């Protein structure tokens, strides 16, 4: 672990993202039961489990796409049950999607600019009437600036562009700046999604199978990159991943879900040796291929 990471780890205080006893039910189906989680700055955690274990559901509850039936989610100490996804995003939680959801007809640059724009400064924190009024005022002032093409607006637009270009560069996508997102190769689309998520200036980044569909080499690169992002942007990162080796390799703490229940949690070595995990998730094939890792 780099020195920077050690440092950020040391100053990490209260959890930035916290789930307390979160359950969600769809009709009769319990998709997630008593899910607990706490992500701090500098964390790099993994969330694994077999297909249909509730990993993506967990992401959707954390980001406000679904509402928990029970329990509560806190982002930056703020209880966010009942909040809309964009409001939760403004508190500093950003995500990528398992099935890439870019703005396909927009250029790579514009994809990131959408995210850069929609962040905090425009939307004062808080949910009271005062904050709402202030938000509305800022918003309308902003519309007028855009319509009148004021110097301030032009300046902001340039800053946005630079921010977005910077993020594209970080993700190694500068050469795709003006290309439509749908024309990017698969791996680059995944990276663009991360760039876009970073554009919202998150404190916690949720990555939903960021390495899916990549080859081994690309995966290795990506993992290095994720670590670097965590350090450079002072993030807490939570990764859903299918590739066991990969998760084991980079995550310091892993949560294992099966049928919506948390069956294990801990350091990779600990999880790897957990009987329940091996039975429920890794199964025989893993034991075979790794010569009985337990």
């Amino acid at each position, binding site marked *: 672990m780099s020195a920077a990471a050690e440092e950020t780890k040391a100053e990490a205080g209260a959890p930035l993202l916290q789930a307390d006893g979160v359950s969600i039910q*769809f009709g009769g189906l319990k998709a997630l039961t008593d899910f607990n989680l706490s992500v701090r700055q500098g964390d790099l955690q993994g969330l694994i489990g077999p297909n249909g274990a509730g990993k*993506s559901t967990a992401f*959707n509850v954390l980001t406000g*796409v*679904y509402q928990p039936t029970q329990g509560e989610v806190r982002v930056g100490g703020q209880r966010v049950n009942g909040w809309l996804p964009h409001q939760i995003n403004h508190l500093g939680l950003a995500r990528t*999607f398992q099935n890439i959801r870019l703005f396909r007809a927009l250029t790579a640059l514009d994809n990131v600019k959408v995210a850069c724009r929609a962040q905090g400064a425009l939307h004062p924190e808080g949910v009271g009437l005062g904050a709402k009024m202030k938000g509305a005022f800022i918003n309308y002032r902003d519309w007028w600036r855009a319509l009148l093409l004021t110097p301030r607006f032009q300046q902001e637009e340039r800053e946005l562009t630079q921010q977005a270009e910077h993020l594209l560069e970080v993700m190694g996508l500068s050469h795709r700046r003006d290309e439509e997102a749908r024309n990017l190769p698969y791996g680059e689309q995944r990276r663009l999604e991360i760039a876009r998520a970073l554009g919202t200036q998150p404190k916690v980044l949720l990555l939903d199978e960021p390495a899916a569909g990549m080859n081994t080499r690309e995966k290795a690169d990506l993992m290095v990159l994720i670590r670097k992002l965590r350090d450079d942007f002072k993030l807490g990162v939570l990764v859903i991943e299918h590739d066991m080796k990969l998760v084991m390799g980079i995550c310091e703490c892993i949560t294992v879900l099966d049928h919506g229940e948390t069956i294990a949690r801990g350091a990779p070595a600990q999880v790897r040796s957990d009987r329940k995990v091996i039975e429920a998730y890794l199964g025989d094939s893993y034991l075979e291929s790794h010569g009985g890792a337990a």
Partner: protein
Amino acid sequence: MAQLLQHLINGLAAGTIYALVALGYTMVYGVLKLINFAHGDVMMVGVYMGYATAFALGRDMRSSLLGVAVVFAVAMLGCALLGFLIERFAYRPLREKPRLTALITAIGISFALSYGFQLDLGFLPGAAPRAFPEVIEPVEWLVIGDRDVVVWNWQVISFGIAVALMVGLQYLVFRTRFGRAMRAVSWDHRVAALMGIPTDRVIALTFMLSSALAAGAGLLYAIKDTSVSPLMGLYVGLKAFVAAVIGGIGHVPGAVVGGLVLGLVEEFVVGYAASTWRDAVAFGFLILVLLVKPGGLFGRVAAEKV
């Protein structure tokens, strides 16, 4: 009290007709997730087919039981064919395209039909409403008090036909092989195709079925109104669509309930408030229902898979 009863009867009679047309919207929406905007206009075409048949049969023939049957049969079969053609040539090529594309197409067809029928081309009847022949001669079926409440025979007959059609449909959807295939396609037409269900055929049959139902309903409506016009499809269709949405689109019994509710609401507004507000009622009610219960009375809003 008697007045209330009369409105109740009229409302139910109108409601069953809305319900029948609404069933067509709901079935098509069920299998294709498409609001078949042209449904009402297909209905209108069916009514004109019935109109032409009734005239061809002549005055004596058309009010006999056989004559009525022929009128209905021609209209329903003709519409089934029309529905088939529309599906085959307009909707099928767009099935994998964005939903908006099909919706726009449907609106286009609706337009082409409802305004095409207004053209003065000789073989078409033109824009003016025509009197629909009395295929069912009006008889007072039941009179209560000093004509406080009157139930006409056509109300009973249309109620009967509508109920029979609905029961038949319910049987078809839930008790037959075709119904099962239809429900499978409605669940996920790609998966259904992989399971060996002839998706194209099921969808085509659904269109034919819904169009035939619409023709039947349209004739009942024309008999009730004693008139037929090229724009009737647009208005009856829209209201029936409202009924389908109120019940929860895609939900078969919901469409029936929605139709009845709409029929009653309209009747009461016309009866107790002002008839000129009639056309606004359906939409006002729709917006109200959608705001309170976005999925309609019985439907549920499916959470989008993320």
